[in-house]
């Protein structure tokens, strides 16, 4: 099953020009024919034949891709293409959506995350998530960061917890700004600070993978730049998957890029290659700004 996709690697499918322009719904898109190399060496996540249904709607179709350690995978594509849906499969956040059904294999470190033995709470501790809108808890800054370690019992005592909070805020580049007001509500921070607080909160539980769902879409360019710098740093310790609408951002922060279109994973590859030499017509149209 896992080898089924290898044959497509590197093959440039014949682009169908009217596919997207006239009526994308009728596009005779072949499912599972992802262009580019979906594999990486020693991946942390190995996803194969992932289908997601929301009731009758087939949201993503036969998606297969590897997520490498210590690198950023950017997922781009027009709205409603399924990139967020796929992201939410990786920590089983789709479990919370009524009528959502996920099939296929998503293997984290050799173990299928849909395995009965895989506990969803443990999975989410290993695969953290940062959301589109900054959503700090309506608690103090300290409590926001301390929440994860607290529920997972990561800190033995108060001193250790203080240290985790300090380190996490430091790594998220927020420490200097909030060190004097840790007791103030997290919601009192600016949008960009709130998002970095959410990142600090996520790394406080020491995950292996961080999922980011358009983390900068609600932020101004300066706050965005800070988060992008942060991602580059975090990449040294974590695997990062980011969904973004900004191709510039994808180009800046990621090592690999995946292009989604109407629930299909069209093309995956090295970011440099995707943006300079896209092999699929749809990818090319999207990154050159002809649609999307």
């Amino acid at each position, binding site marked *: 099953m896992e080898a089924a996709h290898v044959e497509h690697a590197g093959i440039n499918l014949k682009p169908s020009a009217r596919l997207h322009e006239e009526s994308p719904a009728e596009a005779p898109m072949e499912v599972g024919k992802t262009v580019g190399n979906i594999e990486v060496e020693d991946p942390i996540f190995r996803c194969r034949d992932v289908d997601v249904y929301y009731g009758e709607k087939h949201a993503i179709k036969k998606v297969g891709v590897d997520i490498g350690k210590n690198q950023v995978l950017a997922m781009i594509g027009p709205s409603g293409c399924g990139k967020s849906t796929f992201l939410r499969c990786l920590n089983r956040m789709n479990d919370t959506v009524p009528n959502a059904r996920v099939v296929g294999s998503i293997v984290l470190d050799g173990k299928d995350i849909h395995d009965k033995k895989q506990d969803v709470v443990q999975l989410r501790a290993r695969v953290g998530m940062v959301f589109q809108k900054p959503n700090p808890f*309506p608690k103090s800054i300290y409590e926001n960061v301390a929440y994860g370690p607290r529920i997972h019992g990561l800190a033995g005592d108060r001193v250790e917890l203080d240290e985790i909070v300090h380190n996490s805020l430091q790594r998220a580049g927020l420490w200097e700004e909030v060190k004097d007001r840790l007791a103030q509500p997290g919601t009192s921070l600016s949008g960009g600070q709130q998002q970095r607080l959410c990142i600090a909160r996520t790394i406080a*539980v020491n995950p292996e993978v961080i999922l980011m769902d358009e983390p900068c879409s609600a932020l101004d360019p300066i706050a965005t730049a800070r988060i992008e710098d942060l991602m580059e740093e975090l990449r040294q310790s974590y695997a990062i998957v980011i969904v973004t609408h900004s191709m510039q951002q994808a180009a800046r922060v990621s090592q690999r890029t995946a292009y989604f279109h109407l629930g299909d994973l069209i093309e995956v590859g090295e970011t440099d290659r995707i943006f300079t030499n896209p092999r699929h017509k749809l990818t090319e149209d999207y990154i050159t700004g002809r649609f999307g």
Partner: protein
Amino acid sequence: MNKPRKTPQETQAIVESSLRRRYWAERRFRAYGMTAIVAALTFLVYLFFVIFSNGIGAFRQAEIRVDVFYDPAVIDPSGMRNPEDLHAADYQALIRASLKTRFADVDGRAATRELTRLVSGSAAFALQRNVTADPALIGTTRSEWLLASDAVDLLLKGHIERALPEAERPVSDQQLAWVDKLRAENALALKFNKTFLSSGDSREPENAGIWGAVVGSFFTLALTLLLSFPIGVAAAVYLEEFAHKNHWTDIIEVNINNLAAVPSIVFGLLGLAVFIGFFGLPRSAPLVGAMVLTLLTLPTIIIASRAALKAVPPSIREAALGMGASKIQMVSHHVLPLALPGMLTGTIIGMARALGESAPLLMIGMVAFIVDVPKSVTDAATVLPVQVYLWSDSPERGFVEKTSGAIIVLLAFLVVMNTTAVILRKRFERRW
């Protein structure tokens, strides 16, 4: 279809011509709103005025000052200070003797009886209590303020027309003269009515108190809150956060909404049949009353709590789950604290309704005439609205102001309860 495009001037003219009508509509709508508010306020003020002007008298009570000689010959002829003797003594005789000393000109049995009728029949018990508390009083003379009879009380408060012929009023000409004499000597006055606020019900208006009903209401409502809040919140949390959405939950939801509209007396019948008839719980008890009122308030609390849970932003849930919180952690750490103010609002509404309910409590016997102040939730008791109902139904003129007085106490109870709840809610309120 193909009308020529309007020029900007034409468009403007059209807009301008409609402006007057639009502003007029707005002004009219404001006027409607103001009228409604003024009307509502007028009714409210009138209501309060009537209740307070009628009920304020209940908090004052006529008392007569008499120099009482605690006659050892009457109280303790044996001189043994035996508690049983002291208890059983004829204290009415003391009052009779004191009044006769005061009005030395009164002679004959009929006149003496008329004279003693100025004082309430319960005044003797006050003397008895005095002696029991301090036997050293025996043999001394002390000036005592004794409770006047309800007729004297009404006369003093102006509820009895002096102009009426003697046969048509409850006080005789002779009594009128005594009252005026006492009044002139400052030996008859309206005093703060401790009895009203400290004792239970009575057949005599001057002895009737609201405290029994207050305590009954307190027991009933405290127990109602204790039962309905946890059950209601748990039900709402389960339905909203844990239950799978299928036709079973739909049916439950529809039925909860229906229950909120069921007439309250039906809950009373249910309580009578189930709690008293089947489970054999005591009649007239706050325990059963609370269980019935719990059934009554549960739908309100569940509906309000579900609305409050729905109003918690989904992003908070996602954030908690994304951190690896289990579902129960998500609910108890994040969703519940945010939904609590809304849940409390629903509870306040439910409790206010429960406080005002009388119909279902009539069914389970909380309408009984109960003199003792209840000491536990299984003692026979009545509640404030039922007490209002009982007094309003009593034939004695003296109960008219008691009825309004009871309403004032009921309103005060409501205000205290709601203020506490609002303060509590304020404390839990958080921004996000």
